[in-house]
């Protein structure tokens, strides 16, 4: 047995920033109590923002607008390429334009319930409040949301909710919102308020006297490793789904920024809460490098089914109606095909495990539009989903207007991330985490169209208010010098790590290790987890890590554009993070949201939460590589939305 699993439990971690009082008034109260920085003094403060996605882009633009000097980083060649751009479906907002009973309170309620009661009420309520401002902001920026003939904004309903509150721009909502933030950021770059470093990747965090004071970053073109100093550091570096190798994340999305911050003292919360998205295109073979998501909006009109009989290999069109099992409609009659993502994913796994899966390897279920085409006509279906259908056809060479799509779940989003308080501050003073990089708002499961909402809420509205308070209360310090011993130490550690990767000169490629780790994680820490499986993974991960440092082969040098070196360095961090994910999954001996422990299910196979033991966020403190971390619990209190066993039947 690996002693990594024998963790100690430390003091509870408490969010000291959320005000008391009625939940609807807390955000106003916090904003009023927060100290402000005199506009004339703001330009004296430098804020580093890592990442240019929805959270980072909007934060950089807004902080610069407020007068701060922003130094911003992205590893892509342009801030416009951050992976937020790939979000398809939409963004939620409690505008109630449809008069269908929506309200801020309902969005709050849906999000807490959808997250299976593992998120903080204060944060979620604030998110619901801000949602309405986001739409106003984006429209003002020229985001071309879908509109009705009268010129007003159109909305649609989206996975897991019964109101129509999702604003969208065809199947490219993420792209349009990101370009809005990118354009706002571009305006600030032109104005000289943002200093942008593209193709520059953060490799470590500089903490001096207990405060985050800067980062170490590598210029990916020249290979030069430099230090950058600031009064506060904001991580907006996204999630860690690429631990699984195959996911819907972009190829270069990675966990290095948050993992390095974790190693420097930031607690990592709920790492096992990963979301498996039900509607992805199934893999075709070993060569598969990533998985492609099909927007969940497809579930609004598509019907999901598998053959009733096991091993039925007839083509879909030859299977008569009465031999098909529309299993979501059967098991969950009131929500049907629109059940939340975790439930839809697990149901797909179950029918495939029963041997009723379709397509190569039986790892797929049908998503059928035949009824929708009959009801609305092909033209209407084409207008709504045309680009998704085209994408599907391009990838699979099958025409979804004629044969049903095949879909299968894939890793999509990580609810876990750096622990943050109500101000989005981590446990390292001066280090903030926003967007998918933090753990704050989605609990154990994120609802569809809520990621874009959270990224923009954090970046445009929350952080720009709360960071003022930190900067105002922190006495202005002299600029750090490159010669400071801590800076020298962090710099040397980074250089040593890269040099070591280059010098091993073994016989395995970075990808081969990444794939091996990913397969292990998918098997044991994927859609269904067991104690035995997780213990197996915890035993195996240190072995892979040891082998990695013995057999890794990275060609070239560190002083050039070297994509293999970038990749290998990210895998170093995955090999540690994976271990923490498994430990977190092992310790949480309950099922909740995206975390399904087979030992904890109701008689009819639904996730069974165990509130008396696990109604807390698990924030882990790093000790050393391979050494067991310390668990700090943040107890969750529900005053407004009372925990019930989720039911979508």
């Amino acid at each position: 047995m690996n002693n990594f699993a024998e963790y100690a439990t430390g003091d509870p971690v408490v969010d000291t920033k959320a005000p008391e009082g009625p939940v609807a008034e807390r955000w106003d109260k916090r904003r009023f109590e927060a100290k402000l920085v005199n506009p004339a003094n703001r330009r004296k403060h430098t804020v580093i923002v890592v990442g240019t996605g929805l959270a980072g882009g909007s934060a950089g633009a807004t902080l610069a607008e407020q007068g701060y000097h922003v130094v911003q980083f992205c590893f892509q060649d342009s801030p416009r390429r951050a992976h937020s751009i790939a979000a398809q479906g939409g963004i939620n907002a409690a505008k109630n334009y449809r008069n269908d009973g929506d309200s801020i309170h309902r969005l709050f309620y849906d999000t807490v319930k959808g997250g299976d009661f593992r998120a903080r009420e204060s944060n979620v309520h604030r998110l619901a409040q801000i949602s309405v401002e986001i739409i106003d902001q984006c429209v003002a920026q020229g985001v071309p949301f879908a509109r009705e003939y009268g010129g007003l904004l159109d909305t649609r309903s989206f996975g897991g909710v019964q109101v129509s509150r999702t604003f969208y721009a065809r199947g490219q909502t993420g792209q349009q919102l990101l370009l809005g933030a990118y354009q706002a950021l571009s305006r600030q770059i032109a104005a000289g308020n943002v200093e942008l470093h593209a193709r520059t990747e953060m490799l470590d965090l500089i903490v001096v006297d207990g405060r985050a004071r800067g980062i170490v970053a590598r210029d990916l073109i020249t290979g030069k490793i430099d230090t950058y100093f600031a009064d506060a550091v904001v991580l907006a570096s996204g999630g860690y789904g690429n631990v699984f190798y195959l996911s819907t994340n972009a190829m270069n999305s990675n966990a290095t920024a948050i993992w390095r911050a974790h190693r420097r003292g930031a607690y990592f919360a709920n790492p096992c809460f990963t979301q498996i998205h039900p509607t992805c295109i199934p893999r075709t073979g070993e060569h598969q490098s990533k998985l492609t998501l099909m927007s969940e909006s497809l579930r609004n009109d598509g019907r999901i089914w598998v053959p009733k009989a096991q091993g039925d290999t007839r083509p879909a069109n030859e299977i008569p109606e009465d031999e098909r099992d529309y299993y979501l409609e059967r098991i969950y009659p009131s929500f049907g095909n629109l059940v939340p993502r975790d439930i839809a994913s697990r149901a797909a796994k179950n029918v495939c495990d029963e041997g009723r899966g379709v397509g190569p390897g039986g790892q797929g279920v049908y998503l059928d539009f035949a009824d929708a085409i009959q009801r609305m006509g092909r033209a209407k279906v084409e207008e709504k989903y045309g680009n998704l259908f085209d994408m599907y056809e391009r990838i699979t060479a099958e025409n979804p207007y004629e044969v049903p799509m095949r879909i299968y779940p894939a890793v999509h989003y990580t609810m876990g991330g750096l622990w943050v308080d109500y101000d989005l501050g981590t446990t390292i003073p001066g280090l903030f985490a926003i967007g998918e990089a933090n753990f704050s708002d989605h609990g154990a499961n994120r609802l569809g169209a809520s990621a874009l909402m959270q990224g923009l809420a954090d970046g445009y509205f929350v952080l720009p208010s709360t960071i003022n308070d930190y900067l105002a209360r922190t006495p202005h310090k002299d600029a750090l010098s490159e010669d400071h011993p801590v800076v020298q130490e962090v710099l040397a550690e980074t250089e040593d790590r890269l040099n070591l990767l280059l010098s091993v000169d073994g016989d395995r490629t970075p990808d081969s290790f990444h794939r091996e780790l990913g397969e292990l994680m998918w098997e044991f820490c994927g859609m269904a987890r067991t104690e035995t499986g997780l213990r197996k993974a915890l035993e195996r991960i240190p072995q892979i890590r040891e082998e990695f440092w013995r057999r890794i082969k990275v060609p070239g040098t560190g002083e050039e554009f070297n994509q293999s070196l970038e990749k290998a360095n990210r895998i170093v961090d995955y090999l540690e993070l994976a271990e923490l994910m498994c430990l977190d999954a092992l310790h949480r001996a309950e099922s909740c949201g995206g975390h399904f422990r087979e030992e904890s299910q109701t008689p009819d196979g639904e996730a069974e939460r165990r509130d008396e033991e696990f109604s807390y966020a698990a924030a882990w403190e790093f000790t050393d590589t391979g050494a067991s971390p310390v668990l700090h619990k943040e107890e969750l209190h529900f005053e407004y939305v009372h925990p019930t066993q989720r039911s979508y039947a």
Partner: protein
Amino acid sequence: MKLTLRVWRQKNAGADGAMSTYEVDGISQDMSFLEMLDTLNEELILKGEDPVAFDHDCREGICGACSLVINGDAHGPERTTTCQLHMRSFDDGDTIDIEPWRASAFPVVKDLVVDRSAFDRIIQAGGYITAPTGAAPEAHATPVPKPDADFAFEHAECIGCGACVAACPNGSAMLFTSAKVNHLNVLPQGSPERETRVLDMVGQMDDEGFGGCTLTGECATACPKGIPLPSIAAMNKEWLRANRKAAKR
């Protein structure tokens, strides 16, 4: 499938480049073009050779990072991004030429990777609406006629990949620039900065060293997002209008 690849190799921006030939075997029709290159790179690493550098990220056709000229066509034979091109578009035994975007405004960084920061500077010159956070009016305060919203969206779809420049015999960035000008200028929110936007963006485009437009239409043919050629005419109209207005002042 077995293929012969002729790939542009160039150590860095300052070095000379040349085509190198590689053989790859065991390529599946279901692979994407980039997965085929992954296969080549895995072999090169194990042989101790430098893998081929190429830009890629989302592999879903939306981030705009991938950028290869394949057999002379930007993004290859299908009208899509390179990451969405699949090997079923090729035949066993084919020889495939793979080059970077070729344009003086897009200098080569390494192998197939080019520097497209000129596009960012064109956006910085005016490809935005000045809307400070928090100052926004209620979203329904200004209805936008659906045809205008659709026109804006059609142009906003541009992913900034640069295929239009790579395909153009003049290395012109007119399609890219016009896409953003048209997206923002048609909207009521974008109207107050309508003139400065088009003048400044076109000015920046010229400063970056992109060529002029002779309406060959290669750009719109190569565009994976289908930005239409009349987009350029619409921008020219905006530009003339803005100049006339400026002259009157």
